[in-house]
């Protein structure tokens, strides 16, 4: 019975998205939006339990079998991603109850919930679908919806950021479409498993074409998931969007395209072909450069949300670094990093958004003594920042540990330096904010304790995310072994 749940999740999210505009009230929009996300969360957990017990499976969507019809492929990785996406979006939707009115005009609030449900539904579609063209359709839906949640706040800079994002992400989807067209003309299939069979048999005489196709996929999906030199849209979009939108964009939107990229490398082409081509080395290089350059750019920022946004570039660098290693452990570390970053960065964006909302201060230099005024929000920010720096008992440490193990296992010890330098650079921009927030005689002077703090009730959703960060930090082994068990099903 559980095998139809992924389809039901997507249907529930899409149908509820269009039920919201039928009611005018904000309350109804919240009830529909959040209950749809809740149903999807329960169904995704049940799917994961089923997949864990019985292994990966294909689900035929509609009445036609594989080469003609569309299929979903649900393994442990896809199941885990479903749970991750729904947990984070549930927390963000919960937080948005308290904060979204501040950013948006009353008329736009139902539209926000429509867009979020559309976005999460399409991202899950990208993760679940086993059909390349179907993935492309979901990519287009998610592009529009993610630009929508940036521009829904009707300010000048939002429109500018959203246009930049729209142009670059259309370029990305265009390249992906060209890649799909090339693969389709080579093989005559759109279903990933069938493409793989056909590609393996024609590989020797078409290796150039395959290099072009995989290059198109790499650049196209790289633009969308902020691979280092292609990340230019990200800081603007993440800085100016409302706090809930930036959390969703950073935690989920970037990740779905990476999962599709992993599926293209491992399911469509397969390691036997990709291993022959130089693509993974380039991805590894760009990931390593991104890990360092993203952090350096973050150090230079004066705006808090912009700094957190540049930190996303560095963290996505880790993911591409893991994929580029080309080993099972590297891939597992990359997927673990997806979890780590989704929880940590959504908590960071929500707490940074809270600080901005309550104090109106954007710049880091104005935030001295904020730890006294908003002690709990700042504590959440601190835990998030420490996790990304790699302090033990937080998920970021486990993630970096996994990368270190993967690098050593791959016999490329020199890359260990990149991981370490990147961690230290993270410390350089997170710690000043934290230290200036909590300590220093002159910065604490004249600040009233809990002056601008949110009520604890409104912080609960972020606390749930932080508990996730601590949970994966204390017992990350369970998740890692689950990911490792799921990786063979990707091939």
């Amino acid at each position, binding site marked *: 019975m559980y095998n*139809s749940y992924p*389809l*039901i999740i997507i*249907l529930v999210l*899409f*149908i509820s998205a*269009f*039920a919201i*505009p*039928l009611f005018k009230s904000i309350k109804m929009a919240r009830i529909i939006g959040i209950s749809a996300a809740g149903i999807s969360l329960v169904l995704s957990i049940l799917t994961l339990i089923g997949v864990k017990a019985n292994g990966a499976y294909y*689900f*035929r*969507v*509609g*009445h*036609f079998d594989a080469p003609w019809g569309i299929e979903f492929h649900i393994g442990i990785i896809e199941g885990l991603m479903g749970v991750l996406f729904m947990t984070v979006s549930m927390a963000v939707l919960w937080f948005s109850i308290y904060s979204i009115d501040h950013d948006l005009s009353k008329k736009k609030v139902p539209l926000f919930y429509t867009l979020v449900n559309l976005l999460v539904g399409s991202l899950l579609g990208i993760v679940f679908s086993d059909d390349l063209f179907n993935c492309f359709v979901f990519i287009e839906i998610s592009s529009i919806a993610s630009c929508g949640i940036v521009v829904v706040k009707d300010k000048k800079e939002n429109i500018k950021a959203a246009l930049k994002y729209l142009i670059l992400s259309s370029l990305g989807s265009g390249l992906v479409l060209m890649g799909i067209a090339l693969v389709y003309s080579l093989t005559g299939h759109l279903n990933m498993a069938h493409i793989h069979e056909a590609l393996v048999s024609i590989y020797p005489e078409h290796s150039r074409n395959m290099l072009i196709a995989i290059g198109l996929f790499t650049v196209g999906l790289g633009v969308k998931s902020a691979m280092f030199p292609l990340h230019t849209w990200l800081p603007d979009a993440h800085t100016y969007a409302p706090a809930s939108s930036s959390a969703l964009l950073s935690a989920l939107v970037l990740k779905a395209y990476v999962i599709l990229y992993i599926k293209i490398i491992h399911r469509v082409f397969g390691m036997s072909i990709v291993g022959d081509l130089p693509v993974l080395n380039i991805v590894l290089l760009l990931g390593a450069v991104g890990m360092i350059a993203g952090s350096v750019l973050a150090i230079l920022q004066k705006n808090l949300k912009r700094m957190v946004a540049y930190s996303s570039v560095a963290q996505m660098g880790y993911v591409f670094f893991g994929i580029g290693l080309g080993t099972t452990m590297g891939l597992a570390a990359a997927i673990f990093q997806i979890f780590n970053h989704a929880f940590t960065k959504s908590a960071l964006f929500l707490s940074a958004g809270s600080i901005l909302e309550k104090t109106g201060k954007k710049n880091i230099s104005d935030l001295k003594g904020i730890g006294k005024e908003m002690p709990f929000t700042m504590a959440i920010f601190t835990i998030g920042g420490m996790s990304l720096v790699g302090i033990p008992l937080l998920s970021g440490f486990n993630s970096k540990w996994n990368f270190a193990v993967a690098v050593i296992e791959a016999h490329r010890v020199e890359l260990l330096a990149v991981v370490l330098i990147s961690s230290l650079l993270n410390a350089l921009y997170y710690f000043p904010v934290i230290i200036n927030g909590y300590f220093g005689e002159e910065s604490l002077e004249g600040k009233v304790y809990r002056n601008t703090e949110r009520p604890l009730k409104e912080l609960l959703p972020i606390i749930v995310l932080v508990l996730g960060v601590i949970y994966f930090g204390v017992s990350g082994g369970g998740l890692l072994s689950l990911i490792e068990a799921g990786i063979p099903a990707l091939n």
Partner: protein
Amino acid sequence: MNNIQREAERSDILTEVGKLIIPFIQVFAVYVIFNGHLSPGGGFAGGTILGASMILHRLIFGWDNLISRLTYERVMKWMCASLLIYGALKGYSFLTGGMHWEVWDIPLGTPGKLLSGGFILPLNIAVGIIVSITVYVFFKLFYEGTI
């Protein structure tokens, strides 16, 4: 400003030809939508024709006519209702097909008759409504600057 000036210069020829031609366009649009499963055309093609007739009506007769009742809220309600119907029908079909359930389907009817083709006819009608409204709303957005 420019738009209002243009509306003031509305000519009699335009009005009379519009009165004559718009009903035919709309009947043809409905024909294309309802025969999508029998002949070339369908929801998308018929929807654009219907949307074009609405745009023509708006250009010729201006804002003070029947079309003024199509407010943004109202067309959005129609569009969302159509999308819901589309999602529910297609989702039902996807789900029953994927689960191999032998349950009730829309009867197929005799091939070649208007009422045949199972899900295609209701889906075409929903698509027709969605596309016509989208075309009209886009026009309104670019012509008047607001929706």
